[in-house]
């Protein structure tokens, strides 16, 4: 190595100072060719999507903002919000139980996560839909009256969500250095204050990215409630195309709305992450 270096020609050129030398970048012909090929293919796909009459873009435009579709969208949005809020509340409780010193609480929390992660959400939802067969009456009320399709949707999705949220929150709490808790203990801060003021705000940094994932997953996942006739975004367009047989354009209506909402959520996630990263950014 040192031999090769010593034999390399002198850097100082005879025909000019080092500052006056122009740097010529390598020609990356292969990269350019690949880009052209990909762009051409993309263009072909796009033209076919626009030109293909079967997409029926006119029908898409007609139904995009109809009351029925907007009602379905609204249900999808509030169902997602409720399931996320309740799911994470229960999930946080499960995570704290799992990390507690009490072996019974630990075991119960573990068992919950195990059970609700081990079965498909579709099966769970159908199970809750038919809970009346197991318990015809709950507290003197007919189960069928108590558990309407919307309630079944909230309960079923929340219990499933909580199992995943528990693991996300637990991971976040574990990511906080042990020294942080010791420092809080040495300052006389109680367990609730330690969790709320010291541990969770720091845990949020590792909770937010997977929670954002879950939020987007939940938004799309709520479409599963269409099988129990809950009138969400997907079900509302299904109702239309069962009548008009315009399956593809109406599925496109639902698709576009899902894309719009998930895009907005992704932007929101960026700002939430930035908020919880305060004090973390290195001075560069």
């Amino acid at each position, binding site marked *: 190595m040192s031999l090769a270096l010593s034999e390399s020609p002198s850097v100082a050129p005879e025909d000019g100072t080092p500052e006056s030398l122009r740097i010529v970048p390598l020609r990356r012909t292969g990269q350019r060719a690949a880009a052209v090929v990909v762009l051409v293919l993309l263009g072909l796909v796009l033209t076919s999507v626009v030109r293909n009459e079967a997409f029926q873009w006119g029908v898409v435009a007609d139904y995009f903002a109809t009351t029925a579709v907007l009602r379905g969208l609204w249900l999808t949005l509030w169902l997602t919000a409720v399931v996320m809020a309740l799911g994470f509340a229960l999930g946080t409780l499960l995570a704290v139980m799992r990390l507690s010193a009490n072996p019974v609480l630990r075991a119960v929390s573990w068992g919950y996560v195990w059970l609700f992660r081990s079965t498909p959400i579709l099966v769970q939802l159908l199970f809750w839909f038919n809970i009346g067969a197991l318990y015809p009456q709950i507290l003197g009320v007919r189960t069928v009256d108590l558990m309407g399709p919307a309630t079944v949707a909230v309960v079923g999705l929340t219990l499933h969500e909580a199992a995943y949220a528990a693991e996300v929150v637990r991971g976040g709490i574990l990511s906080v*250095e042990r*020294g*942080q808790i*010791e*420092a*809080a*203990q*040495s*300052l*006389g*801060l*109680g*367990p609730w*204050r330690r969790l709320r*003021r*010291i541990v969770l*705000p*720091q845990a949020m940094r590792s909770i937010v990215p997977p929670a954002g994932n879950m939020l987007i997953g939940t938004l799309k996942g709520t479409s599963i409630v269409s099988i129990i006739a809950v009138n969400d975004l997907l079900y509302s367009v299904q109702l239309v195309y069962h009548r008009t047989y315009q399956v593809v354009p109406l599925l496109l209506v639902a698709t576009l709305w899902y894309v719009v909402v998930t895009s907005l959520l992704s932007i929101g996630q960026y700002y939430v992450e930035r908020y*919880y990263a*305060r*004090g*973390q*950014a*290195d*001075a560069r």
Partner: protein
Amino acid sequence: MSTPMVEVRSVHKSFGSLDVLRGIDLDVRAGEVTVVLGPSGSGKSTLLRTINHLEKVDSGSITVDGTLIGYRRESKASARRASGKGGGRRPGRLYELREREVLRQRTRIGFVFQNFNLFPHLTVLDNVVEAPVAALKRPRKDAVAAARKLLARVGLADKADAYPRQLSGGQQQRVAIARALALEPKLLLFDEPTSALDPELVGEVLDVIKDLAASGTTMIVVTHEIGFAREVADAVVFMDGGVIVEQGPPAEVLDAPRHERTRAFLSRGVGSPRLPGPEK
């Protein structure tokens, strides 16, 4: 002489099969600075952590300013029942305190960590204000005023609104000292306060500790800085293998050690530079 500020009596502690503390007896008088020296794994950090009950002892007792730490002695009724069998000091029973009571005891004892352990998501000011507001229920306005004075005392008045990560290690440790002082503790414990610092930052932290020593704060300092011990300590304790090998005034322990292990440690510690890396 009044009773000592800290009384450690035959404290034992083990982690699994490893005996970390094997019968420690130690007195620290009020207003004095006690420096604890010893090689890695000698149990000195563990001893410090038992004093504010971050570690539970397996047996023995620790008293700070007349208050038993982490436990309460048996009730009067059971004491009366037990009396009659032999006089003098009976072993008796110690009942573990509830966490709330332990936390209250800790507010009287300041603890400064090797790795600072500042709360990274809170500003410097909020780090210092947190404990007086949360643990002592002080009005926030008073706590803020007191915190600003403390930050000025450690020379960081202008950093109140910075986040810990924006400060150097030495500055962070000075904030940590201000945070510990915010509870107006009767006793300050330092667990290798300069071991995680770059060499050029050690001085500024030691200066703050020296300043506290001069103001008559009772302190126990676990450190590798033998020069600091010589300059500031009223008493030096040398630990090795979970026992106190030797203790006394710095002139005796540092300059005329009686034990071979102390001599060996001092000749190694003074002559050669410190090994990098934290010690646990």
